């Protein structure tokens, strides 16, 4: 028992060091007004400044990239919810086979590399429907697919925790059509899962590189990669802040996902 505990602590310690050391190094590089060559344990607490971040945030190129990424993230989250909630509800109610099929296809992004996905996508639509390749928002469907392994699982958990059949039957017997049933009865009861799925989609999109790069879209990660050459300190400052923001999203997602609607603790 004790030995196992010790191993557990050791693993935790190693993992923490593995993640924390580079983060700390990044933070020092980005936010201390000290040349890299002079950084040492002796000046850990000296000359901290937010200036590199603030300067970068003032850069109009950053604004453009940031807004684009944010727009893509919101669009992806919205499309994910609009597609998944009704489709998966129907699969639960009508067809176990369809449910398994959706489950399988949701992990495709783990199997098919993003690069294959984009090349196929571009080749298929360049001539048939060029809007998908030219317009920045044309890549939203690809982003939805990329986030699918995370978002599908979350919605699936939400739906499984409900007595879907009874809720849907009750709603329909009271005169509500399918649309109303899904958005005013089922969705509110899995709002925790929907919030979690949306945050996960946001996080995935804010970090997505391959697709944007191959489609030549100037999203935030691309801008950062480019800015790293121009102004490494500023790029690191922004990158680190984004990481922190993602962590906040995930924490929020956990918080929302943790309390099930209708559970006693909630009110």
């Amino acid at each position, binding site marked *: 028992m004790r030995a196992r505990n010790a191993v557990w602590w050791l693993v935790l310690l190693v993992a923490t060091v593995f993640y924390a050391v580079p983060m700390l190094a990044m933070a020092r590089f980005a936010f201390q007004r000290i040349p890299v060559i002079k950084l040492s344990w002796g000046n850990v607490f000296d000359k901290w400044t937010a200036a590199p971040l603030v300067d970068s945030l003032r850069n109009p190129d950053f604004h453009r990239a940031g807004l684009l990424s944010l727009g893509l993230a919101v669009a992806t989250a919205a499309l994910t919810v609009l597609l998944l909630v009704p489709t998966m509800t129907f699969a639960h109610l009508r067809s176990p086979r369809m449910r398994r099929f959706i489950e399988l296809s949701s992990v495709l992004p783990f199997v098919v590399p993003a690069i294959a996905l984009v090349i196929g996508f571009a080749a298929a639509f360049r001539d048939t429907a060029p809007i998908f390749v030219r317009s920045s928002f044309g890549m939203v469907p690809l982003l939805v697919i990329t986030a699918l392994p995370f978002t599908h699982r979350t919605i699936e958990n939400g739906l499984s925790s409900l*007595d879907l059949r*009874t*809720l849907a*039957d*009750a*709603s*329909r*017997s*009271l*005169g*509500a*059509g399918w649309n*109303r049933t899904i958005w005013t*009865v089922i969705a*509110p*009861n899995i*709002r925790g899962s929907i919030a979690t799925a949306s945050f996960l989609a946001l996080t995935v999109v804010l970090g997505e590189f391959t697709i944007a790069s191959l489609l030549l879209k100037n999203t935030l990660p691309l801008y950062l990669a480019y800015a790293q050459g121009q102004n490494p300190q500023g790029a690191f400052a922004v990158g680190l802040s984004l990481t922190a923001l993602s962590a906040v999203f995930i924490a929020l997602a956990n918080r929302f996902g943790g309390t099930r*609607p*209708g*559970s*006693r603790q909630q*009110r």
Partner: protein
Amino acid sequence: MSRNLVFSEVRKSFGRTVALDHFSVEVGEGELVTLLGPSGCGKSTALRVAAGFEVADGGDVRVGDESVLRKSASERNMGIVFQNYSLFPHLTVRENLEFGMRVRRIDSQVRRARVGELLDLVRLTGLEQRFPHQLSGGQQQRVALARALAVEPRVLLLDEPLSALDATVRLEVREEIRRIQRDSGIATLFVTHDQEEALAISDRVCVMSQGRVEQVGSPQAVYRYPNNPFVARFVGRVNDMAVTVVSTGVAVLQGGAAKFAVPPIGITSGEARLLLRPEDVRLTSPHRGATALGIVDSVHFGGATTSVDVELKEGGHMVRVTDATREMTCAVGEEVGVVFDTERALLTREA
């Protein structure tokens, strides 16, 4: 327009399972009919076909003179109460009751007044701000009933609405349902597998087995004059004894010798089973006029009635005797006689 609910020759299979086999029954206007039968006999399926949740393979379901099978569930205007708690967990009692009215775009003043009336009706005034998880099971089912009535449905369908409740609450809600149903005069189909519940609440009982109707009739008729052995065995308690019919209208217990009269119809010779209600058996002193002799095995005092189990000396049959009219005083181990009153007994070859 009359508001009765009619199933005619409805068929429904799930793969190889036949859930409804030419199922026909009528629920008259203002009438409460129960579907009674063992688990899996197709009761819920019948209700779900009427409600539009399942599509029938054949036959017709009509409300008044209009077939409903072509309409979707949301257009049928039937009030339904489910076995599982079905209130919307994210809405308060008031919002649950208003749901159907909102769908119908009923004006908020009218909604408010109607919610008040409904809560009065199910005696839950004052609970409109509660969420379902803040209600007891009995209260939840009463709200579910009120919600079903809120849309002024043409018929009411109840699928074992009491089975999640414990005994006392069950009785209370059952009487509530009956009172409200009588007052509103709405045709109601009530599904249950509890024969006591069915006998107590119904105008008529429809006994089902394996997707077929075995008998439809008043509770008294189904209990006193079962059409067939299945109904006799399923509704109420019955003494089920092996006998040999020696000639038309005369039988002996297997392993015994004393002859007694049996209904002179159907089986006129050979081995058979005699189905006899406990109240059609009388206890006597051991000697005079007894059909058989036995030893008292156990006595069950039930308040208004007392039941006695007697083990017969001939053939070792166990016979239950229930006598509501007279107090039965006998002790375990005592020797007694029993008399069969076989006027309403059934003879059958089915084991």
